[in-house]
């Protein structure tokens, strides 16, 4: 996983509440057994006018011009501005894989669904929760300002606007640490292998029906 420290990037506003992971990456693309290559199919049904199938050459497909990701001014965006309960529904990690593969490293929303939020951290994407009022303001500024960029600093836990307003955000200490250093948490857990074995030995006596 790539570390995330600080990101200054172009912002694209996705003005919909309850964006679900089926919308982020539709099921037909879940047949892949890889972690990469999902970017062209991100938001497939909203982005393209035809029915997407795995392996299609997306550069040849008809676009829905009005969808925000297709607008020329938002090309190259790395920060997604979203509404409440972003990433709800299916646990598919293909959703953050698709966002990452497309080029997003940070998503800002008033709230996220739990599993999606967690999946982001495992893939070097920073989900930032800001107050609904602040998110409203960012939407307005972003839509009014071509080339609108935000500066997201994980170490300082701030999002800074082009005019210099800085908004603090919360992030769990362990997740922050892993993300800042690009750490593999399986390796970290395995450093406690003895503790896990001791737990198992105790449980075997307490609850022998578990077959531990």
């Amino acid at each position: 996983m790539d570390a995330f420290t600080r990101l200054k990037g172009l912002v694209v506003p996705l003005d919909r509440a309850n964006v679900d992971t089926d919308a982020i990456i539709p099921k037909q693309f879940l047949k892949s057994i890889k972690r990469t290559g999902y970017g062209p199919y991100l938001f497939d049904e909203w982005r393209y006018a035809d029915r997407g199938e795995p392996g299609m050459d997306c550069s040849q497909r008809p676009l829905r011009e009005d969808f925000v990701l297709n607008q020329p001014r938002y090309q190259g965006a790395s920060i997604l501005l979203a509404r409440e309960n972003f990433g709800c529904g299916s646990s598919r990690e293909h959703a953050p894989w698709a966002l990452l593969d497309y080029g997003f490293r940070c998503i800002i929303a008033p709230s996220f669904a739990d599993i999606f939020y967690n999946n982001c951290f495992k893939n070097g994407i920073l989900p930032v929760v800001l107050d609904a009022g602040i998110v409203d303001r960012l939407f307005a500024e972003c839509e009014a300002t071509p080339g609108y960029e935000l500066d997201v600093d994980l170490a300082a836990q701030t999002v800074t606007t082009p005019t210099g307003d800085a908004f603090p955000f919360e992030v769990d200490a362990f997740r922050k640490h892993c993300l800042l250093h690009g750490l593999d948490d399986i390796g970290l857990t395995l450093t406690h292998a003895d503790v896990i074995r001791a737990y198992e030995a105790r449980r075997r006596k307490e609850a022998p029906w578990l077959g531990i």
Partner: protein
Amino acid sequence: MGKTLFDKVWDQHVVMENEDGSTLLYIDRHLIHEVTSPQAFEGLRLAGRKPWRPSAAVATPDHNVPTMDRERGIDDPVSRAQVEALDANCREFGITEFGMDDIRQGIVHVVGPEQGLTLPGMTVVCGDSHTSTHGAFASIAMGIGTSEVEHVLATQCLIQKKPKRMRITVEGPLPAGVTGKDVALYIIGRIGTAGGTGHAIEYAGQAVRELSMEGRMSLCNMSIEAGARCGMVAVDEVTLEYVKGRPYAPRGELWERAEAAWRELHSDDDAAFDVEHVFEAADIAPQVSWGTSPEMVVPVTGRVPRLAEARDAVQRESWRRALEYMGLREGTPITDIAVDKVFIGSCTNGRIEDLRAAAEIARGRKVAASVKQALVVPGSGLVRKQAEDEGLDVIFREAGFEWREPGCSMCLAMNADRLEPGERCASTSNRNFEGRQGMGGRTHLVSPAMAAAAAIAGHFVDVRAL
């Protein structure tokens, strides 16, 4: 102060607590299917790791499997590759798999309880959001992503932050014609799809206790649609009765010991919850979702809402989009909505009791001529067999339903079963998101009896009036 059910089970699974407040939580049971596991197994291989305790994991393919002509194998080469990858990974890593030709194969959340792989007081995970189903057995059951699937395979643990506790009490007896599915949809309609975010829900109250295990599973299954980490129901006689004698359940002296421990799995009288909701069962009628989110739901006696009734601009905009996508006009009575297809199945409603309820309605009747297809897809090979032993397949076939092989099928349309653009479906599944059952498809979530009734009438009807 007393402990909640969630706290009791959680505390038994804490391996260690880190200074930052995160917990290393031990996982008793890991269920695996073909869609969210290949990258996890690949990760293990790349890192040269082995599963920590292979006997904790059990796998079965469900999302991609065909529901007819199964002896021909899987036509779609991409789906086939994914199912074959599961077979190969299970062989390589020594994990028990109920493969496509095993009668125990089925939707992972139907198979786990049916086999006694899910036991009270366990921690259960699966790379699938509807893992919350297993909470019906007073287990902490959570959906996880693929990176966590790999983490659990490699360490038998998960790094977790303790969620908050919420209790949802449904008081009074369950009215006739109202099922666990209706209770679930009603609750989501009231608290919203983010109402449970960050929380573990415990369902309590007379109406919940009156539900069978199947009904409790439908209810817990949809906890994720309320945004919760998991949903649970305390152990009682109904739970014990269901578990006893299952293939993987303990027997003899071990059963006695387990039963004594399981009887403790309820919240203490003086336990405190972070949030409490109380509803009256008498207020719950059979539910029908009208929009593209499970919270967009009304009783069958109701109407599609009007935009003016939305609470704010964000909701008004999502209602407007939903009406447009669903091809519905504001204020339309639910019973005026005609359906093109009917789907009975899924991890929410693919169990034997669900099929019995649907067959009860279908018996001696015919699917309306205007309905293009009505599918019945059992949740597992064993559910299918039991239904056939009871003659339910004959009832369905005579009424004009198609009787299929077990799998997820049209719940998410990863196999050949799907809606075409614009088609409207009465579905017993759990998600009515845009495109969920096929691009442009329109889903209305209902109980099995309501779905069968819609198939017969050609439009939604109140099952209580039949």
